[in-house]
């Protein structure tokens, strides 16, 4: 949703109010509450970057602790100012985060969450039991570190009043929001949404999942550690039980979840609601009713997850939009419905046709390919070549091994034997994203749209394979959507599409990566006769204009016969025969194995 002038006005107003608060409010209790709001909003924003990659970290306090201990020890041992120690701690936390994240990101869901908890617990138990750490560092075990008070000393990040901490906290919150805002609009934002949406599809579009997960992790750890130094300087006490505790990590995650971690302002909203509530309950009723604030936290969390699974941000924004509409200030809705929405620039002419290779070397060359799953031989001694610009039909009964061949050509499976070369380069040992980068695009038999992204964003993920800027990606994506005549539905969400529509989006997504070879797995299944004819026509046109090669797996013989220039028939993992469509259709072996007598008679 693009920001309307009123949104911008609201953000500016909120910032001005925040900036002016210390001029009006001098009660340190209230200032403290504001500082906590900024602090938790900052931490939850930083935490949400890992959540954007679809992973739940319940151990972020580890990075908070690393930041606090690093800057404090540097200050106490070497007299280094915490302003610098802050950066050192952040870099150390980033390094640790990447080292821990690298193996942990292979795990998903609860496994990842449990690993982060385990890591944090290891660190906490270690610090709580270590008086003198490596290099003689005085960790002072469970006692923690007390930062010597030097009075008003801005050079070493110490202030007497709360106001300077207030502005530092505000600046940090703005920093985190800005980082998250810009990430969302850049390639990495689209990529993380894709990884969250469907990992296989993300890889097919050239995304190296590990790299992008680790970038998100690195930025998140860096920011979190900055928060650790802030905590240390504000409270002048580094306490391992609190700072490295899982409780704190869960509190941070809660703020993000309740506010809405998928949105830029969600963590801020979560913090504005939760931080004062918990501080007031803890302060006012903590003595008589210990546990009340966490009881309420738990209750709110359950209610939010049950009734507002995406957090409070979206419903609040919808409410705001209705108020604005009621006041007649703006007419907002989903951009597709909004009249006068800025028309995207007319798609530039299609990318220049790649000169067809004059050489006779095939584009894709498969030799002696074999794949076994346990005792099942899925593909055996399979040969196939495809020339530039050729449309080849790969047919055969269910279970013949067609999709397995696709999965090996797109590097999802490694073959047990045989060679696959694409444009003269061997594909053996490559990852799917590398295959995509070389120019192999694919669609999936069971479609894999990114469910929470719009059609346009889905296709833009593909476009980012060859362009960097969001504007360029948008242009390429619209061009690809135009090719499959689907640009009018660009603002629909992935999970709202019908099966036939998903197939078309997948074709557009693959086209946007600028492939030289397109692997289409049953692209017209589920379409009616008119739609089928239409999509087939579009595919042929794409081939003619862009000169790409297509391998089509399809059971609709009419489609195969009309579109393909050559047909290969697979049976029980092997290639039974290959030739012009008409020849294959007449061949008795094809009739016996797949087509059937009815087809031959027809």
């Amino acid at each position, binding site marked *: 949703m693009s920001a309307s002038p009123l949104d911008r006005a609201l953000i500016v107003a909120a910032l001005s109010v925040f900036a002016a608060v210390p001029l009006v409010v001098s009660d340190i209790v209230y200032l403290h509450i504001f500082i906590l709001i900024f602090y938790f909003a900052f931490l939850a924003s930083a935490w949400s970057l890992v959540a954007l990659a679809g992973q739940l970290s319940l151990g972020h306090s580890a990075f908070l602790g690393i930041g606090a201990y690093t800057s404090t020890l540097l200050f106490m041992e070497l007299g280094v100012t915490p302003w610098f120690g802050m950066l050192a701690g952040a870099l150390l936390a980033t390094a640790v985060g990447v080292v821990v994240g690298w193996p942990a990101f292979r*795990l998903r869901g609860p496994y990842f969450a449990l*690993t982060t*908890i385990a890591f944090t617990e290891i660190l906490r138990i270690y610090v709580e039991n270590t008086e003198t750490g490596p290099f003689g560092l005085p960790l002072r075990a469970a006692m923690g570190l007390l930062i010597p008070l030097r009075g008003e000393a801005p050079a070493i990040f110490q202030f007497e009043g709360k106001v300077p901490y207030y502005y530092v906290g505000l600046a940090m919150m703005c920093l985190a929001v800005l980082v998250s805002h810009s990430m969302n609009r850049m390639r990495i934002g689209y990529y993380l949404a894709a990884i969250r949406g469907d990992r296989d599809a993300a890889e097919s579009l050239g995304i190296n999942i590990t790299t992008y997960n680790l970038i998100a992790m690195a930025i998140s750890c860096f920011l979190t550690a900055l928060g650790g130094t802030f905590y240390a300087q504000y409270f002048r006490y580094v306490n391992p039980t609190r700072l490295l505790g899982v409780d704190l990590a869960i509190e941070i995650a809660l703020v993000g979840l309740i506010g809405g971690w998928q949105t830029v302002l969600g963590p801020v909203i979560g913090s504005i609601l939760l931080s004062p509530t918990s501080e007031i309950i803890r302060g006012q009723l903590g003595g008589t009713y*210990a546990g009340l604030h966490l009881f309420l*936290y738990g209750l709110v969390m359950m209610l939010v997850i*049950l009734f507002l699974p995406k957090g409070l941000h979206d419903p609040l924004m919808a409410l705001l939009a209705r108020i604005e509409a009621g006041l007649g200030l703006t007419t907002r809705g989903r951009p597709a419905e909004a009249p006068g929405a800025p028309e995207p620039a007319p798609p530039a002419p299609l990318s220049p046709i790649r000169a067809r290779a004059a050489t006779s070397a095939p584009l894709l060359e498969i030799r002696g390919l074999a794949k076994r799953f346990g005792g099942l031989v899925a593909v055996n001694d399979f040969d196939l070549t495809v020339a530039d610009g050729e449309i080849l039909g790969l047919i055969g009964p269910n279970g013949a091994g067609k999709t397995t061949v696709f999965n090996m050509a797109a590097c999802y499976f490694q073959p047990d034997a045989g060679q696959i070369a694409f444009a003269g380069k061997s594909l053996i040992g490559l990852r799917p994203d590398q295959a995509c980068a070389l120019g192999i695009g694919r669609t999936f038999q069971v479609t894999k749209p990114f469910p929470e992204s719009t059609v346009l964003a889905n296709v833009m993920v593909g476009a980012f394979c060859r362009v960097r800027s969001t504007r360029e990606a948008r242009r390429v994506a619209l061009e690809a959507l135009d090719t499959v005549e689907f640009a009018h539905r660009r603002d629909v969400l992935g999970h709202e599409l019908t099966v036939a529509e998903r197939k078309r989006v997948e074709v557009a997504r693959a086209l946007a990566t600028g492939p030289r070879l397109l692997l289409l797995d049953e692209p017209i299944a589920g379409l009616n006769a008119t739609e089928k004819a239409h999509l087939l026509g579009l595919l042929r046109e794409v081939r003619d204009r862009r000169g790409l090669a297509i391998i089509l797996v399809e059971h609709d013989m009419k489609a195969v016969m009309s579109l393909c220039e050559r047909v290969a028939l697979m049976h029980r993992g092997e290639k039974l025969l290959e030739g012009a469509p008409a020849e294959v259709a007449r061949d008795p072996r094809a009739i016996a194995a797949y087509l059937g007598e009815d087809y031959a008679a027809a």
Partner: protein
Amino acid sequence: MIETLAQSLVTGLLLGGFYGAIAIGLSLIFGIVRVVNFAHGSLLMAAMYASYWLWALLGVNPYLSIPIVGPLFFVLGYAVQNVLIRPMFVRERALVIEPLGVLLLMAGFDLVLSNLALLFFRADYRGATVTFGSGTFPFFFMDLSIPRTLVFVLAFVMTGGLAWLLKRTELGTAIRSVGQNREAAALCGVNVYRVYNVTFGLGTAVLAIAGAAIVPFYYVNPAMGPPLAIKSFMAVVLGGLGSVPGALVGGLVLGVVESVAAQFVPATAAAIFSFVLFAVVLLTRPRGLMGTLDV
């Protein structure tokens, strides 16, 4: 030296039986319902309070409270699944899948339960002193605690009982079929949501039985849940997610590692060993030692 080592091994096995006893319920629920029950620790705490108050107010021996606490927590578990978790499954089927939603829901439930206990029962540590089933008995050259040995035996009995139930009864067949493929089981006429309810009830009941049996030697307090829940997760992951006997094996491994490591380093630092072991297994062999589920 050998004697000390043998002693720590036996102590470790008893400790492992304790971990295993509280982990098998978690494993059953994870294997079938595929929910990581973050409220596991607080449900254990609640069961222990129930058993404790039956002793403190009515004088019921904790072992004799098992026939009361077990069914009571079956009903509680059934209700938690039916009221809290089922709506999530219904929504998940209809809309976007939020695998972390249930996990967080249960984390919220955990906060609610443990802080309710704190509000009502205060942070005091409470223990039951019983005459029947207390004390020690001689075992070779050492003296073993009777209640800890009873929990060790109970862990094996419950594991065997669950295995029998899953393998030999019609209910067990339904439960296993749902665990393997929810849609296919539904198509075969199994009421999946009812099976989930019953499984969650069973897992909670088994946990509650273990809870009652540890009351004689383990102090109850509102904050006891999370540390024991983490131990249970570790036992389940070590043994293999989805395998009930695996949870017991994982618990035993954990107990022995902690107990033997404590011979060489301070006991608190020994906990690091179990976490490191856990992290290594999770990262190198996420299926665990006996697991059947893919990650």
